[in-house]
């Protein structure tokens, strides 16, 4: 789209867009292309020689049980993070929206975890859930009678990184739901109240459907967040362990590429990851955006 009134110049627009194009070419297209080429090559770990092997690397990663496990781990992890942080964010936002006098104060009290780095959030939760020093771990052990040990037990480790990753995301979701809630016309709610709908009924029949665009947008954003930005959480808290139980895809790319020096496999994994994100984004734009309700 372009403006009705626009400028004409033979060199200026090129000059203005040049920095962005140069940076995008050097640090996006060129690496992406290299990654794509690399994923069809099999090279020795020292980078001395390489051989064109068609889809060998792709077949190999999908035959690798560790990779398949990593896919399952990533799906479980991202769904867990998205559902925990979205439902808590929605819950708190609904409550805050009812407490009309204190909205600004509540927002200030809830917004700052957004600014905490995922890795630091990981450190805080590691302390709370540490098997020998953590206070929440102590609570779990005494009240639920469970043997909480994220260092040895894969499920416990998964719960730990889910908590660390979701905590920070609650405030992000809160901000969006709060904005969404305040955009809903008061008259709709009042009309329903006059018709005798209870507050709960009103929430499910009016507020929730009207929030659906926000809801879907946040689902996509949270899933993308848990795919990539949680790298810091995993690296500080579990390093993918125990036994690969928290080894999500992006961490595996890092481990196979930079620690294991298996370039072909790591590039193939990157390409798969990239296609997955493109797919999610396209789905969001093409499909979900049309299916959900929009206000005004």
């Amino acid at each position, binding site marked *: 789209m372009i403006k009705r009134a626009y400028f004409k110049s033979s060199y200026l627009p090129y000059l203005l867009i040049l920095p962005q194009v140069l940076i995008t070419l050097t640090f996006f297209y060129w690496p992406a292309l290299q990654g794509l080429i690399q994923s069809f090559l099999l090279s020795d770990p020292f980078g001395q020689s390489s051989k064109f092997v068609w889809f060998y690397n792709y077949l190999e990663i999908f035959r690798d049980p560790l990779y398949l496990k990593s896919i399952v781990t990533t799906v479980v992890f991202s769904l867990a993070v998205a559902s925990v942080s979205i439902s808590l964010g929605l819950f708190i936002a609904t409550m805050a929206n*009812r407490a009309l006098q204190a909205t600004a104060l509540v927002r200030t009290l809830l917004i700052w975890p957004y600014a905490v780095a995922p890795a630091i959030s990981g*450190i805080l939760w590691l302390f709370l859930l540490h098997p020998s020093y953590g206070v929440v771990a102590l609570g779990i052990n005494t009240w639920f009678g469970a043997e909480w040990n994220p260092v040895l037990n894969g499920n416990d480790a998964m719960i730990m990184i889910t908590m660390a990753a979701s905590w920070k995301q609650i405030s992000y979701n809160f901000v969006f739901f709060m904005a969404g809630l305040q955009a809903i016309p008061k008259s709709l709610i009042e009309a329903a109240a006059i018709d005798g709908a209870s507050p709960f009924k009103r929430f499910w029949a009016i507020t929730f459907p009207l929030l659906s665009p926000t809801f879907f947008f946040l689902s996509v954003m949270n899933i*993308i967040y848990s795919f990539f930005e949680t790298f810091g959480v995993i690296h500080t808290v579990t390093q993918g362990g125990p036994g690969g139980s928290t080894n999500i895809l992006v961490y595996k790319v890092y481990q196979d590429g930079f620690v294991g020096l298996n370039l072909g496999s790591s590039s193939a994994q990157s390409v798969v990851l990239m296609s997955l994100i493109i797919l999610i984004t396209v789905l969001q734009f093409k499909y979900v955006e049309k299916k959900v309700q929009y206000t005004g």
Partner: protein
Amino acid sequence: MVEKTPILDTFTYVFLVLGIFIVGFPIIYSLIAATLPLEDVSKVPIPLIPGDQFMVNMKEAWTRGNLGTQIFNSFVMATGITIGKISISIIGAFSIVYFDYRLRVVAFASVFCTLMLPVEVRIMPTYEVAANVLGPLQALWDVLHLNTLVSWFVGHDFEMILNWSLLDSYTGLIMPLIASATCTFLFRQFFLTVPEELCEAAKMDGASPMTFFRKILFPLSKTNIAALVVIEFVYGYNQYLWPLLVTTNPDMTTAVIGLQDLIPQADDLPEWNVALAGALLVMLPPVLVVMSMQRWFVKGLIEKEK
């Protein structure tokens, strides 16, 4: 709200306070732990009365983790990303929205393809580019067999080797993270809502494109810029994977990465008080930025959705 619901209202406030407490708990607990001496922080649960060791722990974390240098590095990186991204984006969006030229659609499409793909998906090859940022140029040179051409031209053997490594440098920390279209997209969306009459009037008064940009468009974009400053600063400061790879020298790494060394491992003394003091110190700058610029930050986040 609409009708009187005293019971529900009570529940609302109870849950709200509970929610705020749950969200705040990790910080409150860490804040207390950071004030305790080692023998108290090893107890489970820790005593809930703050101790008097806060400054001692802070100082210990500061020196042991080399936090002064690393927080400075984080600052440089975050500021560089913020300024770089915003200035490149705003002129790029200006070019796309306000000019008509042949390659406009190509430029637009090629930049916007990068919208949702973070640096993490192309991490290995981006690292290779950072190791030699002139690599693409070298490849072009080789493909065109320019060595042979130049050798023939100057009459003796000639070989061009271009090498410029960005590893362990601020440029290397900043540049690859600027390659993202989010800001450009936001500015484009905003420019499209600017009334047509402003540009028409400016043209009628004989303003050049850059005068229009400087005198009208830029001042109008100030709130958007403020919002993006907050978002990009937090984004830059909290980066993890890229600084982890591109820096190996501890004096060049960022604070969020450096904190890793303070976490007590299985065989160490459980000095959680020092680790948490360090963590609190490192998280302070972005938290302060978000808190003090809350209004713009919320606006910016919401606009990013559109």
